[in-house]
């Protein structure tokens, strides 16, 4: 197997705030292979969005980033700005959560697509126009030629997200980063947008990193999943492996708190407590205070990310016990 397209290795992000340093991401590693769909899942504040935004170096000036982000073997965080600009948009594209605020309100959609093409291709005006129409068609926007000249406020929420995706796809990137692309949309539209993303990934042979807090979305769309908690990576692996054989107590608890295939009206098992504060480094396992399977060393010793099978790894002291319980 060839080297993965994107390698994130030991990524750590600290924000300097007036009230001290916030450790938003703490030692996260994952790979994305060509054509693969990776889901990053976690609750609010688990660092999933920050991890995603750290990939194209899109963090505010008060963020300190450690670790490496290798794109086709090149470290994006060591690259000069000019080279980074070529990668951004050209090879790695990003879709944001809020399609309204991510589109420039004063420019027509067509112009915003056109700009990407000007920046990353050598097409002439007529070719760019054709490509714009083709892209809107690709993301399922009808009567593309008239839609090109309309402004973002003339689009509905779902249409805006489609336009956003069209802009992201304009320069045929190899990797799409999607930061909760469906959270701001209503449920029926969410489904359409997810199906659209999957179809595009398959048709255009792209890779996709999808950040979401919705386990259902992960189960439906992703090849592999990375579970995050309090800025740390808990578990990664194939979706089937992780969902059917969780090897981290947090993943295990998370899956049990979801309505499943079991009998209707059966009780869900919530996870008690709150995520830890991350304005100081967390000692031991971050999940220990809420964990049902906690043992003595969890409070003092941070579990290492250990292999639990092919392509499946978890950072949990209770992994062996989870495996026994399942067997």
């Amino acid at each position, binding site marked *: 197997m060839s080297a993965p397209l994107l390698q994130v290795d030991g990524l750590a992000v600290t924000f300097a705030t007036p009230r001290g340093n916030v450790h938003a991401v703490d030692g996260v590693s994952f790979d994305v292979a060509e054509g693969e769909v990776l889901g990053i899942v976690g609750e609010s504040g688990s660092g999933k969005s920050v991890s995603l*935004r750290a990939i*194209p170096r*899109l963090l505010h000036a008060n963020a300190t980033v450690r670790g490496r982000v290798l794109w086709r073997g090149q470290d994006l965080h060591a690259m000069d700005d000019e080279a*980074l*600009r*070529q*990668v*951004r*948009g*050209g090879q*790695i*594209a*990003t879709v*944001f959560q*809020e399609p309204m*605020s*991510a*589109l*420039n*309100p*004063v*420019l027509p959609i067509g112009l915003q697509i056109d*700009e*990407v093409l000007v*920046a*990353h291709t050598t097409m002439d005006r007529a070719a760019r126009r054709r490509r714009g129409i083709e892209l809107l068609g690709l993301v399922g926007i009808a009567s593309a030629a008239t839609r090109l000249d309309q402004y973002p406020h003339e689009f509905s929420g779902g249409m805006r997200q489609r336009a*956003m995706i069209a*802009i*992201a796809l304009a320069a045929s990137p190899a990797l799409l*980063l999607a930061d909760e692309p469906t959270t701001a949309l209503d449920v029926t539209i969410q489904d359409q947008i997810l199906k659209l993303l999957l179809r595009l990934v398959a048709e255009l042979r792209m890779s996709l990193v999808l950040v979401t807090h919705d386990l259902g979305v992960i189960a439906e769309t992703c090849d592999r999943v990375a579970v995050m908690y309090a800025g740390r990576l808990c578990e990664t692996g194939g979706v089937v492996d992780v969902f059917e054989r969780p090897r981290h107590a947090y993943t295990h608890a998370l899956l049990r708190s979801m309505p499943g295939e079991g009998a209707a009206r059966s009780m869900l098992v919530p996870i008690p407590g709150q995520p830890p504060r991350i304005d100081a480094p967390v000692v031991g396992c971050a999940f220990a205070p809420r964990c049902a399977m906690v043992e003595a060393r969890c409070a003092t010793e941070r579990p290492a990310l250990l292999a639990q099978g092919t392509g499946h790894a978890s950072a949990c002291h209770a992994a062996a016990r989870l495996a026994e319980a399942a067997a």
Partner: protein
Amino acid sequence: MKLLRRIPRPLWCGLAILAVMLAFSIAPDLFAPYDPLGFDFAALKAPPSLAHPFGTDQFGRDMLSRTIAATVVDLQIALFATMFPGLLGTLIGLLIGWYGGIADTIFGRLVDLVVTFPFLVLVIAIVAILGPGLTNMYIAVTIVGWVAYARLMRSEVMVQKNGEYIAACKVLGYSTPRILFQHILPNAIRPVMVYSVTDMALAILLGSSLGYLGLGAQPPTAEWGVLIADGKNYLTTEPWIVLFPGAVIVLAGLGFSLTGDGLADLLEVKR
């Protein structure tokens, strides 16, 4: 058509006044009954009459013609004394709002420095150093006036640059100049546009003040402030020489103010 109906009434009034002024300045000969520089020794300091609706001055020059001829000079002052500081201030505000840091700190102190001086005093001081005349007046106004525009622009850019669409621009790999001028500028320019129209009213007043003081337009060029300066010695005996140009200054100021306020309403800019 929908936009036309939304135009507030003050804006209509303001635009109407400005349209008349603009007509006067484009084709003064069409409206002026006499040569504004022509002497008529048969009618020195004549009071308003049918022949001379605004009266004549101490050389028998027709005041109506002179007031109309002055319109082009004063509108030019309104435009240039707003445009130069506006362009400079917008550019500086755009860059400072975007880059921030040490430049922003220096800018903050500079603003403190400039706003500490009364505007007019500072302008007069600079014109006094450079010498009187319209060109030097524009230079002086630009040196002092850009600060107001830069402040407006800076605060608006600070808001816009954290917008999600700017993050989107960055990840699409756009260059900084492209993001600044294509994306941030059109989104941040509205308060500056509204302010610039209001500023034109102030520029007219400033231009005529300087003309009155002999620091702006120079006689025999007809300029409203100069006309008032010429007539001030006859204020008690022949008040019309001062009265009509003065009233026209008020009218022009009103025109620009109404337009500025109306635009602010129309564009929903909070001030």
